[in-house]
């Protein structure tokens, strides 16, 4: 067990999720936990961006130019956030040996990191609404790097929880949501493709980071490797610097007409930055609920597929290969789905429903194909499942703009991340419990697939679901606020937009 291949590690890790089989595969479990936790974040990443950008934004960056530079920045920062999280399993083995702790205790590091990232997403969104996205992302990058650098000096386990978990998690939370929202803001027609390309970085970077981290740990031990990783994470800062500061028409609308610092006005401002009013709107809540249900079942195959194929009688390497193949088709699915969605033949919500239903169906078919004993059937279904699950992640984000509008995209993203994180916490223990009770994975997979289909059905209750064209976007927030603010913002629009237009036309 001391010399792992990079395939068997994730595979064996999957066997250990939730510490059930930890006693048999300690190192694998730790790694598995990491893999799982980072897969969660994959779905989190698909936060939808509001489509209706402000007028000045649309005129400034119509689907190209600087937008693609930002896609590259998102590619790099996503790989440094989630790709890094996925590959941290290699450190777990070292931690167990150094700190002489159980794998259970070590696995909490990644859980804390992921939980912090999801929890602080609304905070990141709110700060972007209040201030500048560029500053927030750069600060997030600094925090993420700082957390890892401090972790390299840890002498106790709880130091790791605080540094790698809380500080880095806070940094990651400040990076991810703002970057995604900013990239979505720069595109209108090619949003899905842009996101698909950027999120393919997770799969690709985890392929690259596994051997790299292994090499770093062998050469410098975990302390030196964490120090170097902290430095690598600092590369998020230049990615954030690429975000052009723009005059946000939202900012004036957000600023209260009251200038006092009374608790009421402060609370109101905070709630407007966090977009808490979204929680009272039916379409957003329906969509969030649908995505949450999707999340319950989404990660189950990642956790249990390898264990299931081992149970069905396939060898360690065969099971690992199935998982790797699913991962590869996941990357492909993201890019293809992004390209296809932007062709405009179908409504995004319909495409999302289609991919989700297909993924649910394939998850339910997984146990049947492996129980039949045919390796090729299992491989085919896994490839199809991987493709569909990647395809749906590209689209999930882009649907939200259609629902909430451009202005509230940032806050909507943050809230969605926070809410859907609970689903992941529910889904995998439930599937593990079902496996313990029934003795095999058939029930877990069936329930997971049905959760996905349930999510589709929930999304079908969205208004205007069955029409062939997208519904009109919701009215701009400025018109809903009291008239003073509305007029004020419109005036600002009129005076600012020509100036900003000419500024950018000159570029």
């Amino acid at each position, binding site marked *: 067990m001391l010399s792992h291949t990079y395939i068997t590690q994730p595979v064996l890790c999957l066997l250990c999720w939730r510490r059930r089989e930890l006693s048999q595969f300690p190192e694998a479990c730790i790694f598995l936990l990491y893999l799982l936790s980072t897969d969660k974040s994959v779905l989190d990443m698909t936060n939808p961006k509001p489509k209706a950008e402000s007028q000045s934004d649309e005129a400034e960056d119509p689907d190209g130019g600087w937008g693609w530079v930002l896609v590259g920045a998102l590619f790099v920062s996503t790989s440094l956030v989630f790709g890094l999280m996925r590959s941290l399993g290699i450190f777990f083995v070292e931690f167990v040996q150094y700190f002489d702790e159980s794998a259970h205790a070590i696995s909490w590091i990644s859980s804390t990191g992921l939980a912090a990232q999801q929890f602080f997403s609304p905070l990141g969104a709110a700060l972007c609404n209040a201030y500048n996205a560029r500053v927030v992302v750069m600060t997030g990058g600094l925090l993420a790097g700082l957390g890892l650098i401090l972790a390299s000096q840890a002498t106790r386990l709880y130091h790791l929880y605080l540094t790698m978990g809380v500080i880095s998690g806070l940094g990651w939370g400040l990076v991810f949501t703002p970057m995604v929202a900013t990239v979505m803001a720069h595109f209108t027609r090619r949003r899905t493709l842009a996101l698909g390309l950027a999120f393919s970085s997770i799969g690709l970077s985890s392929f690259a980071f596994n051997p790299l981290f292994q090499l770093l740990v062998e050469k410098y031990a975990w302390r*030196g490797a964490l120090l170097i990783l902290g430095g690598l994470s600092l590369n998020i800062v230049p990615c954030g610097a690429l975000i052009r500061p723009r005059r946000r028409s939202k900012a004036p609308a957000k600023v209260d007409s009251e200038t006092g610092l009374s608790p009421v006005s402060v609370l109101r401002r905070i709630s407007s930055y966090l977009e808490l009013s979204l929680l009272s709107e039916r379409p957003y809540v329906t969509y969030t609920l649908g995505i949450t249900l999707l999340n319950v079942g989404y990660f189950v195959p990642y956790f249990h597929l390898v264990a299931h194929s081992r149970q069905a009688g396939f060898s360690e390497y065969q099971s690992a290969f199935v998982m790797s193949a699913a991962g590869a088709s996941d990357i492909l699915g993201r890019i293809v789905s992004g390209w296809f969605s932007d062709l405009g033949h179908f409504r995004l919500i319909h495409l999302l429903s289609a991919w989700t239903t297909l993924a649910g169906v394939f998850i339910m078919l997984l146990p049947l194909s492996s129980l039949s004993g045919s390796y090729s059937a299992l491989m085919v279904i896994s490839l199809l499942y991987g493709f569909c699950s990647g395809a749906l992640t590209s689209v999930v984000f882009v649907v939200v703009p259609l629902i909430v509008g451009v202005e509230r995209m940032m806050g909507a993203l943050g809230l969605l991340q926070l809410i859907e994180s609970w689903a992941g916490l529910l889904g995998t223990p439930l599937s593990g419990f079902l496996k313990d009770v029934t003795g095999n994975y058939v029930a877990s997979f069936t329930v997971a697939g049905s959760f996905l289909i349930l999510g589709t059905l929930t999304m079908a209750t969205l208004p205007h679901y069955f029409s062939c064209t997208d519904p*009109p976007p919701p009215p701009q927030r400025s018109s809903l606020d009291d008239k003073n603010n509305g007029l004020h913002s419109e005036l600002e629009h009129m005076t600012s*937009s*020509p*100036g900003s237009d000419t*500024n950018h036309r000159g570029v």
Partner: protein
Amino acid sequence: MLASWKQLIFQILLLLISCRHINTTSPDPTPPPLVPIDSLPRDVRRAAFKGEGQIEKVEVLNPVNLELVCTWTGHQDKESNITGFWRKDGLEIENSHLTVQLENEQYQLQRVFNIVSEENLGNYSCVFESEVKIDFVVAVPQIGEIRDKPIVTYVGDSGMITCKMEDSKPMPNTWKWYKANGTDKEEIFAAAERQRYEIKNNERKTKLLVNNLTMADSGLYYCGAVYTLSTSMGHVELKVITYFEPLKPFIAIVIEVIILVTAILLFERSRSKKNDTEGDMMSDQTNTLSPGENNGLEESSSMRQRKT
């Protein structure tokens, strides 16, 4: 002075003469037994010749009377008598030549060896006609699960080396740790240097904790599983490096980040300066057109919104 020199030479000569008769590498395993030979347990190992380079592993823990039995089916034209003898560690055992009869279509060589001390362990071979050989490696259980890659630690940090005897093999009586000193091994006594070394022994696992590492602590460490007859060794390399090692790539990356950020910000500032100068020129023109333009822009954007 001269007398004492003569005495010395005489004593040395005596010593050399007597030494010639002492054969320390005697293949005949009969050193004075600590336990009467007859009361030792008896163990039998059989092996049939299968092919060239055949090696049979025999694990022994405690003193035992080990009987090794070799059988060989012979060539096609089977002679009734062939010669056979035994070797230990490549050297012929004296008085072990036997004439072997063909019984039941096979030849059989057997001999009882008294395995009572470490000297008796080794490679025993039975040889038929100087051509057919079966090796028996008689040894204590070897440590299998051991880290092959060096353990990297830092100066001032503490390093832990673990050795484990597999569950399938018998438990050792105790564990001992050695540090390599040139070609020799020095035993580590944790009790003597409590500040630096700590040995935690479990039945199957042993851990050596070295505190307050220095560069001199680098090297090979040997863990020995002590059995009655002998100690089986496993080695792990400990590498101690200073913090400057990882600091070098780290600083390189930080410098790269700073350069990138500065370049991006400078690039943007130069662009915005260009825009400011252009914008000043253009704003004079646009100010006169602004009311009309605003209306046009608003209409077009609202139309765009309705379409999407």
